[in-house]
């Protein structure tokens, strides 16, 4: 981390989707998928993004890669704002950012051999062809723990964990500086999950790239991340250094989230749900703080005014009105 400039800088990212209805397909509502999210990722750093389904974490990931067009906001990669770039202008930047998806069954073309899948980005960007490409692919296979002789096999001949390794090899092929991982281990069994997490950590140590790591499993995020951001209904409610966040969560939602994870120790205290009810709909999010409908420390102010994400400690930001906007120490 010699370069002080962050690798990725996201400012006020907003993504709204129109809800259309009636015969004229008129706009009848708006899904506030992402509602003003800002964060940065340093070189060689892993930022974990956690939250429950529908909180907008995947939309953030896809917006960063411009796989969905953000409604507003700025995304700077290596200091260049990539939000307004055309497809052609985008192309050189695509080399430096890659993605690994959740489902390794859906994200590999079943009619291509594993070797061709991993080699395709090299052809697309004109980096290597023929013999040179084969050699590079073999190298990538070895890096992710696959045998080079498996290059001629098709995706169906691999297990789930191995397929995820192919996806990782493909993401690595262009030497990216940022890899977005969208729930990369959620579809895998526990014993295989550990293998893939270890692989991701090892590769980062070797190549010094950054991860934007999205997952709903707090344990996985806690393990792999350096910093963690917690999202709720399209907004970041808390962001801090990993150890700080898990040792000293300040937002009542983060606290509820941590308390809800079942601990693998029969002697630990039994599950006591910290929050009641369901996540409200992002079509009509609650006024003020979006969490106020489920928060047990709710005050009048929370219902009308939206708390901003402010500094509550060193490198620890929280969006909560409690204790003059510093959240609730546990």
């Amino acid at each position, binding site marked *: 981390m010699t370069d002080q400039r962050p690798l990725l800088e996201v400012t006020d990212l907003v993504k709204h989707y129109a809800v259309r209805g009636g015969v004229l397909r008129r706009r009848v509502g708006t899904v506030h998928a992402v509602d003003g999210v800002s964060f940065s990722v340093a070189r060689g750093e892993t930022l974990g993004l956690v939250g429950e389904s529908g909180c907008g974490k995947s939309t953030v990931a896809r917006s960063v890669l411009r796989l969905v067009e953000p409604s507003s906001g700025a995304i700077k990669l290596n200091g260049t704002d990539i939000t307004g770039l055309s497809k052609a202008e985008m192309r050189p930047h695509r080399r430096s950012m890659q993605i690994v998806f959740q489902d390794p069954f859906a994200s590999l073309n079943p009619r291509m051999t594993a070797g061709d899948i991993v080699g395709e980005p090299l052809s697309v960007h004109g980096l290597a062809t023929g013999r040179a490409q084969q050699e590079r692919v073999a190298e990538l296979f070895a890096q992710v723990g696959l045998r080079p002789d498996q290059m001629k096999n098709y995706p169906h001949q691999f297990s789930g964990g191995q397929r995820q390794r192919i996806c990782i090899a493909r993401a690595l092929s262009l030497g990216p500086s940022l890899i977005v991982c969208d729930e990369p281990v959620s579809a895998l069994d526990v014993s295989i999950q550990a293998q893939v997490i270890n692989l991701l950590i090892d590769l980062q140590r070797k190549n010094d790239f950054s991860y934007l790591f999205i997952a709903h499993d707090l*344990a996985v995020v806690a393990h792999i991340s350096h910093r963690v951001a917690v999202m709720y209904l399209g907004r970041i409610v808390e962001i801090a250094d990993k150890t700080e966040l898990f040792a000293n969560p300040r937002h009542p939602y983060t606290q509820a989230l941590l308390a809800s994870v079942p601990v*693998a120790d029969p002697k630990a205290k039994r599950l006591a749900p910290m929050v009641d009810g369901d996540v409200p709909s992002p079509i009509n999010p609650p006024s003020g703080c979006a969490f106020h409908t489920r928060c047990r420390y709710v005050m009048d102010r929370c219902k009308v005014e939206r708390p901003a994400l402010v500094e509550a400690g060193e490198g620890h930001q929280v969006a909560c009105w409690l204790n003059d906007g510093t959240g609730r120490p546990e």
Partner: protein
Amino acid sequence: MSEARKDDTILEVKNLQTVFFTNSGLFRAVDNVSFSVRRGETLAIVGESGCGKSVTALSVMRLVPDPPGRVVGGTVTLEGTDLLSLEEAEMRQIRGNRISMIFQEPMTSLNPVMRIGDQITEVLRLHQEMTSKEAWTKAVEMLRLVRIPEPDRRAQEYPHQLSGGMRQRAMIAMALACRPALLIADEPTTALDVTIQAQILALIVDLQKRLGTGLILITHDLGVVAQTAQRVIVMYAGKKVEEATVEDLFENPKHPYTRGLMASMPAVISFGAKTDARLNEIPGMVPSLTNLPPGCAFAPRCRLAIDRCRAEYPPLQEVDVNHLAACWRATELVGAP
């Protein structure tokens, strides 16, 4: 096992064998599995995908799709009745009445074009003599029991109008409507968010205590097991490899596979842990059931495997009081970390 325990046994499964006939050959999805569940007890069945935990549940329910699958051996005794010898019509009298099941994805188990209230009413009227009015009142009462807010209104609604957590509550209401002796929950919270999962697990445990239902909880999540079960079975490649009380299992796991599973789980609170600490992984992958090694199925991935493990399958033996494990080296490991 003591005499007192035997008395409240509601389900006794002995040497269950379920096989599937496929193009790539016959495979034993459940191979010689025995266990029992007592009244008010929670038995967790843990294992990774393909280990046979779900097929075990389906075999007990007699819901294994035939073809390609078939229960070829063993007995399943529920409250004194051997379920495997019943006619399908007799089995239908038991399913949903004495034994019910809830699944992972509530949306696929609920009928999308029937109101929630009607779906619960259907179960009640099928098994108990009730007028439709009585059944509807009972259905609303069940929805209240599973803590669905405004149960009168929700009973009139269709599944798509409910959230994921609420649908799973409705499923539980339906499963418990006839006060079954045994409830089987197959990954009941896997599709739910963690805050909702905590709500649903607390609800299941609370209701089970109140109604005295026996519960078989099938899951891959050791955290869920630790927080809900009294006894645990660990399955690997169709076989039961370990069984113990939940305290014994977590304190002193005997089978290397169980130990591996526990070590490979990342823990949430890792004070002072190095950010990039490696997890203990289990090398390799789960073997294909059509091509199992002759000895212990876990041997190719096991750090402790000796020649005997690769040649001979280890029998389940009592390695400690009420603690069974199928490993040649389990007794050597007593007391080891």
